[in-house]
C-alpha cells in the first residue's frame, strides 16, 4: 500500500499537468499550442542523452556544480540540538539555485530555435540567472520586474543590465512578482512565435511546474548522495523556503520516496496574520487559479487576488507551485511560515557563526531550523541555502542599525 502511494507521489503530474486536483493549464487559448510545443520539445530533450550531457557540462563548468554540502558545526553547537547541514546553492554562479533552471531552459530554447527570451523576476535572482544564460547562448533578453522589487533589489537590476538584459519595470498592482508575471504573460501572448517565456519557478501552466522542478531536482539528487557519503545515512528533516517553490521542490523531490525523511517548507510570514501582511498561502489561503495554475492562493472572498507582504521579494507572491499544494494535502510536506523579523535574525546568526550571509529568502529556512534545533537533539537538519545575501545588503542595512 505504502509503495503505491509513493509511486503515485513521484510520478506526478499526469498528462494534463495535474498533481491531484492541482496544477493543470488555465491560459488564454492562444497559448495552448505554444505550451503544447514546449512540452513536446521538453519531452524530446529529456529523452536525449546529448541534452543531458550538455546540461551537465554547463552546470559543472559554467555554474559551478556540484555545490558543497556543508556541516554548520558552530551553528549546530550554538543551538545545542540538531546537527545542521547546508546545501550551498548560494555558491552557484549568479548567486542562487535559479541558474539550474535557466541553463536547462536555455538549452531548450536553443533547440526550439527561438531567439528572444522573456522572464519575470521578484528578488532579481531569476532575472540575473536568465540574463546570464541569455548572454551565454546569445539570446535577446527582456526581464519584467515590479517597480517595488527594482527598488529593494537594485543591485540585481544593475547586474541584469550589465549582462545585456533589458529590465522593464512594472507599475501595476502591488508592483511585485505577481505583476511581473502578468506582464511577462502579456508579452508572451503577443510574441510566442519568436519568444520563449523562461518562467523561473515551479508554477504557471503545465508543463512549467514539472519542467522547472526537474531542472532543480539536481539539488536534491546531489544533496542525497553527499549526505549519504558524509554521514552514511539520510537526514531526518529537510528544510527549504517556499516562494513559488522551485528550490524547495528541487530539494524535496528526490527524497519523496524516503519515507523517514521529514520535509518542511517555509513560507513568508511577513509582519502579521491578516490578509495583505504575509505570503503564507497554506495557512491564509484557499485553492484558486492564478497565472495558469490551480493551487493554494491568497484571495479575498470575491476571488480577487490579495496583496502580499514579505521583507524578501522572492517569497512575496500570492500563489504557490501546484505540486506543493498536493504534497501539503497529502501530508507529505509540512508547511509553516516565518516572520520578517525572524528571517533577519537568522541572517545575523548565520553570518556571525558561519561566515555565510544568506539571501533573505533562504534565511526563512534557516530561521525555522534555529527554532526547531534546540528540541531536536540527535537529529540532522538539511537546509537548502538557496541563495546568497549580497543582493539584500541594502535591506540588511535598513534593518540592522549599528553596522554602518
Amino acid at each position, binding site marked *: 500500500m505504502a509503495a503505491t502511494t509513493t509511486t503515485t507521489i513521484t510520478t506526478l503530474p499526469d498528462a*494534463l499537468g495535474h498533481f491531484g486536483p492541482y496544477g*493543470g*493549464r*488555465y*491560459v*488564454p*487559448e*492562444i*497559448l*495552448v*499550442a*505554444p505550451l503544447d510545443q514546449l512540452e513536446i520539445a521538453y519531452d524530446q530533450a529529456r529523452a536525449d542523452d546529448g541534452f543531458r550531457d550538455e546540461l551537465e557540462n554547463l552546470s559543472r563548468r559554467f555554474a559551478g556544480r556540484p555545490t558543497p554540502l556543508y556541516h554548520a558545526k558552530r551553528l549546530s553547537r550554538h543551538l545545542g540540538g540538531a546537527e545542521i547541514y547546508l546545501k550551498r546553492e548560494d555558491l552557484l554562479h549568479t548567486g542562487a539555485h535559479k541558474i539550474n533552471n535557466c541553463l536547462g531552459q536555455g538549452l531548450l530554447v536553443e533547440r526550439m530555435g527561438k531567439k528572444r527570451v522573456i522572464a519575470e523576476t521578484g528578488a532579481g535572482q531569476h532575472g540575473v540567472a536568465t540574463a546570464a544564460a541569455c548572454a551565454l547562448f546569445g539570446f535577446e533578453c527582456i526581464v519584467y520586474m515590479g517597480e517595488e522589487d527594482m527598488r529593494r533589489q537594485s543591485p540585481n537590476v544593475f547586474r541584469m543590465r550589465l549582462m545585456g538584459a533589458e529590465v522593464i519595470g512594472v507599475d*501595476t*498592482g502591488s508592483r511585485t512578482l*505577481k*505583476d511581473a508575471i*502578468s506582464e511577462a*504573460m*502579456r508579452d508572451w*501572448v*503577443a*510574441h*510566442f*512565435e519568436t519568444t520563449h517565456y523562461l518562467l523561473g519557478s515551479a508554477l504557471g501552466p503545465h508543463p512549467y511546474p514539472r519542467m522547472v522542478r526537474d531542472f532543480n531536482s539536481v539539488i536534491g539528487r546531489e544533496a542525497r548522495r553527499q549526505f549519504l557519503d558524509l554521514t552514511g545515512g539520510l537526514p531526518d528533516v529537510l528544510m527549504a523556503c517556499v516562494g513559488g517553490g522551485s528550490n524547495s521542490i528541487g530539494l524535496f523531490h528526490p527524497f519523496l520516496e524516503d519515507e523517514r525523511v521529514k520535509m518542511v517548507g517555509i513560507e513568508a510570514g511577513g509582519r502579521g496574520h491578516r490578509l495583505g501582511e504575509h505570503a503564507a498561502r497554506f495557512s491564509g489561503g484557499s485553492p*484558486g*487559479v*492564478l*497565472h*495558469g495554475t*490551480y493551487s493554494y*492562493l491568497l*484571495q479575498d*472572498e*470575491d*476571488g*480577487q*487576488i490579495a496583496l502580499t507582504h514579505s521583507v524578501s521579494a522572492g517569497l512575496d507572491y500570492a500563489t504557490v507551485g501546484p505540486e506543493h499544494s498536493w504534497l501539503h494535502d497529502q501530508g507529505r510536506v509540512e508547511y509553516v511560515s516565518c516572520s520578517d523579523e525572524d528571517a533577519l535574525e537568522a541572517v545575523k546568526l548565520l553570518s556571525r557563526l558561519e561566515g555565510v550571509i544568506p539571501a533573505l529568502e533562504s534565511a526563512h529556512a534557516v530561521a525555522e531550523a534555529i527554532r526547531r534545533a534546540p528540541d531536536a537533539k540527535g537529529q540532522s537538519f538539511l537546509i537548502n541555502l538557496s541563495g546568497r545575501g549580497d543582493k539584500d545588503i541594502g535591506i540588511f542595512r535598513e534593518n540592522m542599525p549599528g553596522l554602518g
Partner: protein
Amino acid sequence: MSRIISAFERLRRENNRGLVAYITAGDPSPGHTVELILALEQGGADIIELGVPFSDPIADGPVIQKAGERALRAGTTFPKVLDILRNLRTRSEIPVIIFTYLNPIMRYGFARFASDAAAAGADGALLTDLNIEEAGLYLAEMQKHGLDPVFLVSQTTPDDRLRVLSRSSAGFVYLVSRAGVTGERDRVSDQARRLIERTRRVTDLPLAVGFGLSKPEHMRALAPYADAAVVGSAFMRVIEEHQDAPDLADRMCGLAARLKEGLRIPVEAEDGR
C-alpha cells in the same frame, strides 16, 4: 430560443452584421453601467459582453486593465454585477454575456454562478482562462441553467481543437483576431480572415471576431466575412477619458453607431460571398 440566437437570426434576416460591445461592469461606478449599456444598445450594439473586473487580467491590455481597477475601487463584486443585470432586465432585452476570468467565478462556485446569472437575466458566459480540458463542471452547470458557454479560438488553435471548442460553444464562437492582449490596433490582421475561413469549415455557429478592433474601417474590413465584431477597449477608453463628462452616455452611443455603420454590408461584397 436564447436571446443570443434570436439576435443572430434577426441580423441574418436583415442581412446585417452584429456589434458585440464589451463594457467593464462598475466602471466608473456600478451606478453608471445600466445607463451605459442602454446607450450602447441605442447606438446599435446587438450583444453586450459584461466584464466582471478581476485583479490580475493577464489577457487584457492597459485600457481594460485600468477599467477593471476603477471598477474594483468602486466596489464592484460579482453580486453587484448581478444587481446591474437585474436592473438592466427591467429596461432591455439585449443579450448579455458575462465575460471574466476564472477565479472570481470559481470562488463564487460554478453551480451558484450559473443559477444566479441565469436568474438575473444573463444569456451566456465567457471565461478567458478556462481551457476546455478543465471545463467539465462549468459546462454541465451552464447547460443545466440554459446559459450559452462561449469559447475563444485563435490562430494557433489546430483544426481538431477548433472543432471541439466550437462544439462546446453555444450562441456563437469568439475568434481572437490576432496575437496579443486586448487593445486598439491600426488595422485588422491578416490572420483574422484565415481563422474565420478555418472555423467556418467546422461549425455552423455565428462567428464573432474580436481583439484589436476599434474603428469603423475595421468593421468594414470584417463585415464581408464575420457575423459580428467585438469592440471593447475603444469603449473603455471613452469611459476613461470622459468618465466625469455629462455626455458620457451620448459618446458611448455615438461610437457604437459609427461602428455599427461600418458593419453594414456593401452590396458588391454581398455578391462576392
